[in-house]
């Protein structure tokens, strides 16, 4: 199918884009990489009156390191995240995750800002933003707002952004000394949206977790920081503590059912990911077995 007719405006600056958004409100749609917006328009799931193309705004691209914060511009493409030395060193979780986002031809166009603004619950980068305690910087004609990633995602395709706001950058605390990361997802085929996934960050000291953040995705209406992770902090990890954490996680999740998987299957896969994650981060493969003593 083809997109319905719309008017097109190529924004000449961020200020110009914000003026256009203020003038048109929710009749306008921002176009950055187009890798989610265009399919939605071709399927006639959305039919904006006007498309505001921010693709040429180079001021929204690139990486800046400010002390212990890595600032990534909204228009930074997935392929740039994959290739960036800054990301590899300071945000390795993001690098691991982005390799799972779609396919090369799509990663060449899709952007970090677009992925976060689109807020598909099965997508990888929103989960990383939540796990890494990112701050999402948004701007409107009235000024700038900074939103914690944990408050940014509101539901399926729903965020704290208003129709007059532009997501301009993402701020990530750089990976501290001693932080380790884990990223895995189950998908039907590499590059497909996940059936269940986990983006995790930990600090391991003397064989126990001094800190652990577990950002699950595709198992709810938004990326979810599992409360169950707290059970694993500062305790000795045994098959029993892991089994308890998996049980707590299973209670905590409220996965959706769709053509890919039932809710029960998603709960099960989330538990498998939790076990693998703990075993990997602690370098204790025996914990992955999933059999309690």
């Amino acid at each position: 199918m083809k997109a319905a007719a719309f008017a097109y405006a190529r924004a000449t600056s961020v200020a110009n884009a914000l003026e256009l958004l203020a003038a048109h409100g929710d009749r306008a749609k921002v176009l950055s990489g187009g890798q989610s917006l265009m399919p939605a328009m071709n399927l006639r799931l959305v039919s904006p009156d006007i498309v505001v193309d921010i693709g040429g705004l180079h001021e929204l691209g690139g990486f800046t390191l400010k002390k212990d914060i890595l600032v990534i511009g909204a228009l930074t493409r997935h392929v740039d995240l994959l290739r960036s030395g800054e990301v590899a060193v300071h945000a390795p979780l993001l690098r691991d995750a982005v390799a799972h986002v779609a396919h090369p031809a799509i990663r060449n166009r899709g952007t970090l800002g677009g992925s976060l603004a689109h807020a598909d619950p099965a997508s990888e980068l929103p989960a990383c933003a939540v796990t890494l305690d990112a701050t999402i910087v948004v701007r409107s004609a009235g000024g700038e707002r900074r939103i914690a990633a944990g408050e940014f995602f509101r539901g399926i395709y729903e965020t704290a952004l208003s129709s007059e706001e532009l997501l301009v950058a993402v701020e990530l605390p750089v990976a501290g000394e001693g932080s380790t990361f884990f990223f895995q997802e189950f998908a039907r085929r590499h590059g497909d949206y996940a059936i269940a996934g986990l983006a995790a960050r930990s600090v391991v000291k003397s064989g126990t977790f001094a800190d652990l953040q577990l950002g699950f995705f595709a198992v709810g209406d938004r990326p979810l920081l599992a409360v169950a992770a707290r059970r694993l902090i500062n305790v000795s990890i045994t098959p029993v503590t892991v089994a308890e954490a998996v049980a707590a996680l299973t209670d905590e999740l409220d996965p959706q059912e769709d053509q890919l998987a039932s809710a029960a299957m998603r709960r099960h896969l989330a538990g498998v990911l939790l076990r693998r994650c703990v075993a990997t981060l602690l370098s204790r493969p025996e914990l992955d077995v999933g059999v309690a003593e």
Partner: protein
Amino acid sequence: MTAPVPVSLLVNGDPVEAIVLPRLNLADFLRDNLKLTGTHVGCEHGVCGACTVRVNGEIVRSCLILAVQAQGSSVETIEGLSDSGEIADLQAAFRERNALQCGYCTPGMLITAQDLLKHTSAPDRGAIRDHLSGNYCRCTGYQAIVDAVEATARARAERST
């Protein structure tokens, strides 16, 4: 407001000027306006890869780009890659290995495979499958396609040593 917009770009090295409706995607622009029908359209939502072309040297889905977004860029289609001889060996390997069935997916497969071979000199079968995983072949010629890409990679590596 939904009025046509002027666009100027390079297609296979030649300057092109046109006036297009904003809703026209690059795949349809290439096929209908420029009669470059080697670029195929399968799904129109980025899933099948039949419409893959190069924009400023990088592979993209032409069904997910508006023609107006290509303003100022350099687009290369299967016709361009074919006429320049850049992929002659890859095309020959597709023929020899029986990687051509109906041929619908072939332009997208060739452009995507050439993209891999440009970036990686000796991809293994896993890397080839991974890079082509966003391209559907409805004749399910996958095995033969991977064979052809692998053979081309080997032959190119031998030639360069």
